[in-house]
């Protein structure tokens, strides 16, 4: 379908994780997204709501004053919520610009600028938000529904078509109108019932109309505001950005939830996870993500509290199923695709590659999702005998060199992943070995991240690729598996086209009844486990360390990066 760019906005934000893996020597950065996790998460240290948690929330009252430095892998690119699509930008601008809604760590939506969740009309097409009273921008100007309307118009209204918002595809598809019947009310009407609408599109940072309203769409792309916001409505406001080094934010006293306890928040850019680990140990940074390989040494240094929790971030590989490509010829039979998964001893990877900080994926949905089915139709254990017999049965016979051949075509291909991610580099090599043992010749190839993205999204010049991704709060997985996203520009790099899956996903999107959706997603997981166009290998863990002087940092499955409503409550024991 030409001209079809429909990628769910949520899938988009999830892609920012996918994208964000580019930095050199960047190990698993623990990407967060929005999503839902529930109590059945594999017995890891969990942060439950409000009450006692392991380390940072205490019964002490917060002291005002002081700063925290957070280490991160990527520099921000923009502070404009309607332009950003990478984790770093979303994380930092999220501290300056609240949206209508925000998320709790378990994925539940809460009101932010909006007083509460919106009223939904009975036909599911209209959402009515009531803004909190007396909202102000940091310059004292009132924040009204006009600002909200303006922000969304940037994404869907034709008058802003020159504004290069990555949201445009989704917003113009799903939004029929956004209006402000009075300064405290916003009414959003969608073109169709879209279950993940609030989760995907209700959390954008609201931008100031009184500052940006006079600019044309084209000028907005390069507006100075995007790199130095002059006003904000969130917990912090902008102070400075030294590109490639750090962003400095200061407390915003006009924040609707009350002023933050910290005076300053500093976002420091570091090249890789070893540096982050080193600086966590020396105390040069107060907060930072911890790579599984650094976990033990950071813990042993004793300077930090470490939090670990399940997340909907995962490593997966995909077969190129396009019939005109090599992959299409090799992997057309599902027996082949299944056999390759059976040949992988993923349980051993948990310790060997992830140092214990991951879990084997049994389904395409993450264990943290309400739609998770622990035992779908096909469960893949490590079974070399089965792998061999499946391949034999499919007509792939071992040749004299040990490599399987069918109709003169050897089962030989390349696997691509991006250079700089240790876990994935290791996985590729382990896969190569495991598959060699069953007569499959797979060669690993490391390429730069932008190249990998281009291959997956645009040119499809791969046989197999391995990459990380993350799911959002909603169980919809159309970005990866719906056939409409197989067109260039979509993330369905595997070119997977299955009518049953399409129908199931579509149906699940157009109903708001969670039970009905759950049944549909159960069926979806069954089909996916049988078809395995893109086997999901491991679900990662979010691992964060905070220095002992940092209190009340409340990291959780969906409160890692862009959604941090708890940041305003963070305080430091030494007040410095």
């Amino acid at each position: 379908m030409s001209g079809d760019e429909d990628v769910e906005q949520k899938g988009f934000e999830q892609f920012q994780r996918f994208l964000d893996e580019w930095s050199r020597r960047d190990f698993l950065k623990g990407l967060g997204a929005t999503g839902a996790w529930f109590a059945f998460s594999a017995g890891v240290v969990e942060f439950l709501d409000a009450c006692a948690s392991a380390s940072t929330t205490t019964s002490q009252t917060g002291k005002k004053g002081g700063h925290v430095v957070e280490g991160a892998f990527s520099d921000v690119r923009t502070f404009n919520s309607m332009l950003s699509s990478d984790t770093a930008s979303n994380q930092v601008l999220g501290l300056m610009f609240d949206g209508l809604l925000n998320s709790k760590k378990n994925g539940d939506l809460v009101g932010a600028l909006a007083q509460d969740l919106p009223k939904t009309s009975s036909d599911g097409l209209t959402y009515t938000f009531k803004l909190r009273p007396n909202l102000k921008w940091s310059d004292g100007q009132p924040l009204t529904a006009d600002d909200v309307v303006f922000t969304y118009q940037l994404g869907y209204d034709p008058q802003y078509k020159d504004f290069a918002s990555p949201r445009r595809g989704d917003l113009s598809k799903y939004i029929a109108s956004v209006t402000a019947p009075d300064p405290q009310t916003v009414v959003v009407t969608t073109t169709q019932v879209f279950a993940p609408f609030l989760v995907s599109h209700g959390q954008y940072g609201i931008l100031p109309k009184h500052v940006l309203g006079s600019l044309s769409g084209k000028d907005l792309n390069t507006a100075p505001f995007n790199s130095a916001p002059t006003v904000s409505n969130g917990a912090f406001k902008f102070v400075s950005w030294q590109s490639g080094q750090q962003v400095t934010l200061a407390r915003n006293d006009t924040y609707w939830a009350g002023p933050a306890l910290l005076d300053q928040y500093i976002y420091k850019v570091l090249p890789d996870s070893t540096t982050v680990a080193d600086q966590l140990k020396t105390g040069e940074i107060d907060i930072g993500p911890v790579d599984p390989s650094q976990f033990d040494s950071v813990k042993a240094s004793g300077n930090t509290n470490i939090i670990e929790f399940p997340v909907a971030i995962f490593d997966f590989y995909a077969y190129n199923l396009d019939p005109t490509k090599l992959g299409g010829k090799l992997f057309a039979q599902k027996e082949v695709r299944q056999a390759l998964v059976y040949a992988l001893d993923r349980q051993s990877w948990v310790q060997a590659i992830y140092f214990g900080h991951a879990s084997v994926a049994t389904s395409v949905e993450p264990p943290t999702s309400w739609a998770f089915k622990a035992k779908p139709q096909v469960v893949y254990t490590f079974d070399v005998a089965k792998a061999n017999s499946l391949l034999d049965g499919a007509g792939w016979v071992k040749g004299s060199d040990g490599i399987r051949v069918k109709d003169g075509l050897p089962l030989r291909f390349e696997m691509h992943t991006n250079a700089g991610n240790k876990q994935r580099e290791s996985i590729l090599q382990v896969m190569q070995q495991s598959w060699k043992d069953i007569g499959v010749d797979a060669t690993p190839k490391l390429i730069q991240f932008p190249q990998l993205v281009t291959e997956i999204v645009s040119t499809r010049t791969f046989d197999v690729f391995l990459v990380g991704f993350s799911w959002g709060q909603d169980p919809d997985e159309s970005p990866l598996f719906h056939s409409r996203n197989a067109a260039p520009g979509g993330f369905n790099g595997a070119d997977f086209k299955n009518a049953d899956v399409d129908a199931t996903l579509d149906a699940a999107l157009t109903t708001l009844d969670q039970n009905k959706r759950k049944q549909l997603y159960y069926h979806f997981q069954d089909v996916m486990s049988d078809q395995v166009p893109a086997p999901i290998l491991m679900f990662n863990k979010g691992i964060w360390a905070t220095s002992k002087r940092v209190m009340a940092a409340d990291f959780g499955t969906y409160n890692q990066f862009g959604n941090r409503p708890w940041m305003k409550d963070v305080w430091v024991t030494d007040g410095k």
Partner: protein
Amino acid sequence: MLVKFIVRRLFASVVVVLGVTAVTLFLMDRTRGAYVPGIDLNPALRPEDIARLRADLGLDQPFYVWYVNWLWNVMHGDFGRSMIDGSPVMTHILERLPNTLELTLTAVLIGIVLSVPLGVIGALRRGTKTDHSLTIFSVAGFAVPQFWLGLMLILIFSVTFEHNGWPWLPSGGVTSPFGGGDLGDRLLHLIMPATVLSFFYLSLWSRFTRSSMLEVLSQDYIRTARAKGMSERRVVYLHGLRNALIPLVTLIGLELPGLVSGGLVVEVVFSWPGLGRLAFERALQYDYTTVMGVVFFTTLLVVAGNLLADILYAILDPRIRYA
């Protein structure tokens, strides 16, 4: 004759700069394929969006057309905007250049300050154990990968020292993120990276000083000075060292053009926001304009430095003008 020489050199320099930038662009163009810089920022691009972006960025033109356009802009001082985030390239360069210079100049300084004594002592104590150990030391410094040395120093002086409660050195960056910025803070951050970088110069220059010193000391006029009854100290330092240092100055001068790019690995290890690191990170993202800008700028400095050196030589040594 001198003018003609300078003109020829100038012309050659221009050719060099053009050549370098053309080669760079050619390399980047060769392999980008269907890639659109910034696609990782905006993956939801429809085919028509991709086409439009490529047209905007001029990527659908043959590379020589793009090159000429770019060159024309550069002549007017416009280095263009980054393909990734649209920020002006010149801004990035100007931001980062001082950092790189700070690092490399300090390294050169440390190199000089340490090489001269090491070289002199080696020459004076030639053949002794001291000489041998100094040689080994300077050669050893040259034998470790820079990144490894840097990482080891961080490990020792940052992580381990801090762990043991001793005064420790910061592990990266130009200044402390909070409350830093004063001279002391900057110096603290500068010590380790500059030292690592200086090892390279140290090895080269201490050996050179030594051999230069040896050569000078074997000259006739030194023997004359000694015969005249001058104290050994005066002989060595007044006559010997002064003359030995002249070629060293030349050698140091040769390094100056490389100052802008030489610190790349050190910049990466110590998260130093310099030009080298900028070019590297942007190259990984296929951000043509920024990479071209940095390469052009760096090459310009290199060529200008060489040109200056050549002209100075020509002034000092008339034979060269006729070469």
